[in-house]
């Protein structure tokens, strides 16, 4: 028996108490006792048939390819198929941090596996086609049962295997059982309360196996018109009242009465359950339609109630009992899966429990409070915990695992098992590059060893603090030529790990090199000699995360900006091509100081409001970003400025659609506005440029101008087609006449318009956007391929 129900045994020992006495009382009395008596019905579930079991058996596997993290939200870890085999950090392909959920239905282990090898059953040794009673079987033989059929005595029909009763029986055709097992099965059936009478009959087959017929008389009770569902989780099971046949009628009455009283008290004490009114109504209709309450009706009710729970994610909820039968009201007792304990444990690589380095509070603050003690376990809360913990980036494997509480009946212990990532990592990657030597031919000296050296020390002090650094150069022999470095320290939980306020301090030293779009020619202007802007410095900022998407960052930046020409020489002015073809170096000044090198300290703040969400893969919502750089008057020429940008983007859903996997996304209208402005000192490298894939599409970066104040407006409409979308857009960028307010007027010097519009159409192909954009200034169109999103 125990082996037969192995997959379900997880919950059964505690949730399926044998209340023989009461059940027997009902089952044994052929004529239903007076209406006042309360009956209980034990419901058993056998594997594979009910949704609950599926749930318990199933595994949810989340692997993130990027971090090689295996996450596991697991149910029923104790059961058959090896729990560790399913996951393995997906080191393979899979782009860009995408994660996916996969349901893996565990294979259901049947006990009859044991009969597979060889012939370990005994032939019945009787002539074929003899009908016998169970008692006549030999106690020492193992019988093979080739066939099982059910015979309903009320309807006098044989019921098929699809009948709900079939799942009551743990015997399976093809299984091998001893007499004791069969007897026990019969006893279980007889005592479960579903049947008033059950018999088992066998027929011998010529091949030595037997066919089994189970004939039964279904229990029925008085018709009921009310239904009530109560939550009996964590409650003591009601005491059984022994009703002896030796008792007098009066004693029996009294026993029934006290039982009834007990039951009433039990109902009163029970907590309300989550089952909503619509399901109540459905059940009530079921009851009305059925007339007398039969075991099948109860089974249907149980299935309906459990289905609702499981559909809503209450994976551990279970109907344990029906009470108050033979009254007007059917009481359904449910254990919803109350969490009695939350356990967080760390495991080493081999799966042994170890003391982790991570402070538990760091993990705990990521857990939704619905996973804490006293709440009902919901699989969605488990998934959220999984996601949140994964977000920390500290663990290579995460399991969230509800387990029945042995000490508290109907209780659930939520176990979170974590495997920590290596704290320190260092990485060196190298590459050789061949640069053309003298005469364009590569020589020995022109082989350049380049590469990146990076290290990371994370989870310092167990509080998720980290230091990471990296140095990249294209030539290790002469690193001063081109050296990119970054050193960053991240300090989360600035207000303490127990404080719900989530502020993170970040300090970093950096350098960067970018080509300035300010020094770009307009249409028809031959190449403008480029200006490179090198920035190096330190910054420190504090980010307050309101939630995942909304944050407020403020900090201070200290940097040195050097502007260089193509030959890597510091240049104080942009170059311009003279009408006669010569080049003069008296173009617009590149820096505030006029020397080509600026140093400054300024404050920086950025607030992002983002309530976008995905509706079947299409982004919908609103995103507002406001950013200010505030000069403090510290640095070359005492720069004092206020440079601000406001970006408003709205994704408007144009059609209501049903949400769900595989459903088509709605068409979306995107409206976008960006204002940038600066009051005070404005060096050219901080001027706002117009044109480019993130400004006005269809133009090159900076092709429209560089100005003190700019306004960009864009509209895009996205129409879903198959599993991607096509879009049409129109954009406009305008310098608001402020190009002349940038020193040296680079817009005019490089003959740019200062404003421009474009329109076009495009199609999204995975990560790539292919679009045809028409530049309205010249009226010509071109096809562009871009990575990523415009908005």
């Amino acid at each position: 028996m125990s082996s037969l129900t192995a997959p379900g045994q997880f919950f059964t020992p505690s949730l399926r108490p044998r209340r023989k006495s009461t059940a027997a009382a009902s089952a044994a009395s052929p004529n239903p006792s007076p209406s006042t008596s309360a009956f209980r019905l034990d419901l058993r579930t056998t594997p594979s048939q009910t949704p609950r079991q599926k749930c318990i058996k199933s595994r949810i596997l989340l692997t993130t390819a990027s971090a090689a993290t295996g996450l596991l939200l697991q149910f029923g870890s104790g059961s058959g198929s090896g729990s560790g085999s399913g996951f393995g950090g997906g080191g393979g392909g899979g782009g860009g941090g995408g994660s996916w959920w996969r349901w893996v239905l565990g294979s259901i282990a049947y006990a009859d596996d044991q009969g597979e090898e060889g012939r370990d059953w005994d032939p019945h040794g009787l002539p074929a086609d003899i009908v016998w009673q169970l008692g006549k079987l030999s106690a020492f033989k193992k019988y093979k049962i080739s066939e099982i059929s059910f015979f309903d005595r009320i309807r006098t029909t044989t019921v098929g295997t699809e009948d709900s009763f079939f799942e009551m029986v743990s015997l399976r055709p093809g299984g091998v059982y001893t007499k004791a097992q069969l007897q026990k099965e019969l006893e279980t059936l007889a005592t479960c309360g579903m049947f008033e009478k059950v018999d088992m009959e066998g027929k011998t087959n010529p091949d030595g196996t037997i066919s089994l017929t189970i004939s039964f008389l279904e229990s029925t009770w008085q018709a009921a018109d009310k239904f009530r569902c109560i939550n009996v989780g964590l409650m003591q099971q009601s005491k059984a009242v022994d009703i002896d046949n030796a008792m007098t009628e009066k004693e029996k009455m009294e026993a029934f009465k006290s039982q009834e009283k007990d039951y009433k008290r039990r109902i009163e004490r029970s907590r309300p359950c989550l089952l909503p009114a619509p399901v109540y109504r459905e059940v009530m209709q079921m009851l009305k339609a059925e007339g007398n309450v039969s075991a099948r009706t109860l089974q249907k009710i149980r299935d309906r109630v459990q289905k609702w729970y499981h559909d809503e994610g209450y994976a551990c909820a279970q109907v344990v009992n029906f009470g108050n039968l033979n009254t007007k009201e059917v009481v359904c007792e449910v254990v919803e899966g109350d969490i009695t304990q939350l356990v967080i444990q760390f495991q080493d690589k081999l799966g042994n429990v170890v003391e982790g380095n991570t402070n538990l509070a760091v993990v705990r603050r990521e857990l939704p409070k619905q996973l804490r003690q006293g709440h009902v376990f919901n699989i969605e809360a488990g998934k959220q915990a999984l996601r949140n913990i994964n977000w920390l980036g500290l663990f290579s494997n995460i399991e969230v695992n509800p387990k029945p509480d042995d000490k508290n009946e109907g209780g659930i212990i939520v176990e979170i098992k974590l495997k920590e990532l290596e704290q320190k990592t260092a990485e060196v990657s190298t590459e050789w590059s061949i640069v053309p030597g003298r005469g364009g031919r590569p020589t020995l000296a022109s082989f350049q060893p380049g590469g990146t050296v990076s290290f990371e020390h994370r989870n310092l002090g167990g509080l998720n603090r980290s230091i990471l650094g990296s140095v990249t150069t294209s030539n290790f022999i002469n690193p001063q030529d081109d050296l990119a470095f970054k050193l960053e320290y991240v300090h989360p939980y600035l207000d303490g790990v127990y404080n719900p306020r989530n502020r993170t301090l970040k300090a970093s030293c950096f350098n960067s090199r970018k080509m300035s779009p300010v020094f770009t020619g307009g249409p028809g202007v031959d190449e403008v000699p480029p200006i490179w802007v090198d920035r190096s410095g330190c910054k420190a900022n504090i980010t307050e995360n309101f939630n995942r998407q909304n944050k407020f960052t403020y900090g201070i930046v200290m940097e040195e900006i050097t502007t260089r020409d193509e030959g890597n020489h510091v240049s104080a002015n942009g170059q311009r091509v003279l009408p006669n073809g010569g080049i003069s170096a008296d173009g617009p000044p590149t820096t505030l100081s006029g020397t080509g090198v600026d140093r400054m300290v300024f404050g920086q703040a950025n607030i992002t409001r983002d309530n976008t969400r995905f509706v079947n893969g299409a982004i919908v919502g609103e995103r507002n970003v406001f950013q200010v750089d505030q000069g403090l008057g510290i640095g070359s020429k005492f720069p004092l400025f206020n440079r601000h940008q406001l970006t408003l983007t709205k994704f408007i859903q144009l059609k209501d659609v049903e949400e769900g996997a595989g459903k088509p996304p709605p068409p979306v209208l995107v409206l976008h506005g960006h204002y940038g402005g600066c009051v005070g000192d404005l060096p050219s490298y901080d001027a706002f440029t117009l044109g480019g894939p993130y400004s006005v599409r269809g133009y090159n970066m900076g092709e429209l101008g560089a100005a003190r104040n700019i306004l960009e407006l864009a509209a895009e409409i996205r129409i879903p087609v198959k599993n991607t979308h096509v879009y049409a857009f129109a954009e406009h960028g305008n310098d608001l006449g402020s190009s002349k307010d940038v020193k040296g007027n680079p817009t005019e010097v490089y003959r740019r318009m200062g404003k421009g519009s474009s329109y076009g159409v495009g199609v999204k192909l995975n990560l790539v956007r292919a679009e045809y954009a028409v530049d309205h200034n010249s009226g010509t169109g071109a096809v562009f391929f871009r990575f990523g999103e415009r908005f």
Partner: protein
Amino acid sequence: MTSQAREWTGIQQFPAATQTKLLELLGKLKQEDVSSLTILVLGKGGVGKSSTVNSLIGERIVTASAFQSENLRPVMVSRTRAGFTLNVIDTPGLIEGGYVNDQALDIIKRFLLNKTIDVLLYVDRLDVYRVDTLDKQVVKAITDNFGQKIWNRGIVVLTHAQLSPPDGLSYDEFCSRRSEGLLKIIQSNLSSGFGSRMKKHETATTPVVLVENSGRCNKNDNDEKILPNGVIWIPDLVKKITDVVSNGSETVLVDKKLIEGPNPNERGKIWIPLILAIQYFFVVKRIQGAIKADIARENKPLWELRDMGLAKGKF
């Protein structure tokens, strides 16, 4: 400056009648306490700026060439006569290769540093039928660089005035049409200028002078150069110049500020603290409020609502 100025001998080359008229006009200026006059000559290349300067002074001081621009730098010619100093600044053409030559403008501005311009002669040819974008650009460049006020002191000079107009047009009609076209762009430049405080009637009075520098210019009985419409143009030019000088408008002092333009980096600087405060209270705070509202409004999944006890059996 005056020490360098030579005696204006060129005036003696003019016919006697012209000399008398000129001296009369200069005398009038002296009466108004104007003892020196600086005239700036601007225009596209090859329209006859240098020739006009030569004609006005009466000497061949500036080499004028019909085919190429000789003078890449501005030249100032100063002449004194009876205590009166006349400065004429000849400039290189403002157009090069189809664009306004910013560099030339730059050089001119730097040359003019700390000089006061009394009169601007904007030179163009009479015998051109159309006004094109290039003209607009030149006028705009002048306005942008010297300010709108310079047109109060401006005179439009149309050279090559000795021409026979196309069929069906009288000489006067042609001249007035041509000058109208030019004046229109000057005017549109002024009115379109942001923050213009000019009144239209002021600009409408920008005078137009016709000039013929060629030696083949017709002459009258007194040997004075005369145009087809009978105007003796040298005295006419000087008269218009004196008119402009005495019209009461401001002279234009070319100082550092004018050359570099107003420093946009300084504008509004004192308002920065106020701007910052407005940004904090009206933008950052508002967005923060919106975020809070978002979070409060966020669609919680049903299981979370049930957990919070908000379901009340409804879902």
